[in-house]
């Protein structure tokens, strides 16, 4: 029994199932004790309730798979992917701030050249892909969004 539990705890999907069950349980708790207004027929809580129940059942089914020895491996690149995601959120927000200061074209060019330099070894040696491609892409993006679609972005100092 102890060995079985230890083996379960070592499997990646044990925790995946646990999180799935917890999300479902917290949701059901919220429906039972939270501020949900009644509505006609089943009420607004019924469909979310079904979804939470499905989550709990799915989590348990994941545990059954784990007990039968079926589990996905620990993901590669988890940390680097999450850091990249968070950086992208910051860059996305920063891009809008920068557009309001410098304008679309300059902001996009800075973002693209910056990203290309970060992603390329010896970026100056690979200048066609780290400088030329971003410049061309910026021209296309500017033409597409400013001239064709004319999206109402905040006006910057430049263009």
């Amino acid at each position: 029994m102890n060995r079985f539990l230890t083996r379960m705890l070592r499997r990646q999907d044990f925790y995946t199932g646990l999180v799935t069950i917890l999300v479902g349980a917290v949701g059901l708790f919220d429906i039972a004790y939270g501020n949900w207004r009644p509505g006609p027929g089943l009420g607004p809580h019924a469909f979310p309730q079904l979804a939470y129940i499905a989550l709990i059942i799915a989590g348990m089914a994941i545990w059954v798979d784990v007990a039968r020895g079926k589990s996905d491996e620990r993901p590669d690149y988890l940390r680097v992917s999450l850091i990249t995601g968070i950086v992208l959120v910051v860059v996305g927000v920063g891009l809008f701030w920068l557009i309001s200061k410098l304008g679309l074209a300059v902001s996009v060019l800075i973002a693209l050249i910056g990203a290309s330099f970060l992603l390329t070894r010896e970026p100056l040696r690979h200048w066609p892909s780290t400088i030329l491609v971003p410049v061309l892409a910026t021209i296309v993006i500017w033409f597409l969004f400013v001239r064709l679609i004319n999206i109402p972005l905040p006006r910057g100092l430049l263009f």
Partner: protein
Amino acid sequence: MFMESFVDALYLAFSPEVILYVAIGVLMGVTLGAIPGLSGDMAIAILLPIVFFLEPAAALGLLTGIYKGGMFGGSISAISFGVPGTPGSAATAIDGYQAKLKGYPNKALNTALYSSVIGDTTSDFVLIFLALPLAIVALTFGPVEFFALYAFSLLLISALTKGKVAKGVAMAALGILLAMIGRDPIGGSLRLTFGIPALSGGLALIPVLVGIFAVSELIIQLGRAWMARAQKIADETRKRAESLLGDYDPAKDKLSFAEFRATWRATSIGTTMGTLIGALPGAGSSLAAFISYGLAQRFSRNRDEFGKGSLEGVAAAEAGNSATSGSTLIPLFAFGIPGSATAALFGAAFILMGMTPGPRLIYDHTEVIYALFLILIYANLINLVFSHFLLPLYSKIAMIQSRILLPIVCVLAILGTFAAGNSVIDVWVLLFAGLLGVVLRLYSFPLAPLILGFIVAPGAERALRQSLLIGRGEWTHLFSSPIAIGLYATAAIMIITFTFVLRERK
């Protein structure tokens, strides 16, 4: 009436502007499909906010072109480097890359092209001839039948996607919960907004779709590129590909008609299986390609050649993969239910253009839909002609490293999402949906059930609540219709059958 609509559709489909957009789409699709890490689906997702500003026929032409081009583009890197450009071309890589190693990449690429176009065109005709009769049947449906249909789709897509039933169900449930954010459509009360006023209108379709599908994949690819591993792998692939070309004799590498005719049976098997499997929600092109490959091997006179560079293997896999493209749109046109990720993207495009997917779509927008049918067919011809002449160039395109394009695609996603709704909240939703998608991808959760859950949840909730109001709260009312019972039974039979098929495949 029919002739009038058809003539209008002809004008729409064959206007120079639309033909140009289809051609641009095919070139974009092949390019992005050929570069490992990017895909036609990703391009469709990124361009969704932009097509909003085009005329419907032009927009659908561009998306169709990308879709068709992307389908074939995936096989270019699969054959040239053994790296599938898209999941659907994984089966093509088995024999395609072996053919390349044996010194006949051109034969393999041409076989893939012809079988892909044959499979795709057949599947499009099945869509054209089946969508209308099914839509007529769907017009007789009431809330009980529609709820059964939504449940049928959710069950199938959860059970069949990658064969991970539990994780599929969890994703469908999560998609439903994301769709519940905002106002209750019947009572009007707020749900799951966590006290954030900006969420009271619910989550918009575009940022959720683009975030989950495209931004999450972009983040993972950017992370890998940042670690410089992707660059190293790509360099090695390029060196290996160049070294293989040392003793290459192009004169001996031309596909003869006899060789093409020898793949005919495999192409037919792939076309049939791909068309059938593509019509099922959740089954997907990858499954269709592998099942077609397995069946073609079983019925081949040269089954021992499979896995060693067999052109029949390439033909079966590629026809199976591409034959899903038309039939996967059948549930969307007939019932308003997207059966795959691509169908969900097309559904989103319809919604953006003010057309509601479902049985009334063909009646309410007859000209545009007939034009789309025509575009689906001639986009295959454009793909065939372009690819036939540009194959040598396409193989070089597959060597482009995705890191060069990733930042550009990211900027396009962010600006495009903002442009579609003029809302910074949408950009936030896009980025957080991207982060959610990253976590789900890395922990091997299938994303298609999430998107289907998100799209069908409002309709399913309405159908369930209306059914129970009509049935005075009795749950047994959900089983009061023979059609509904038939759908539940079919779902159960299909899940059991496919569970056995998938087990056998393993």
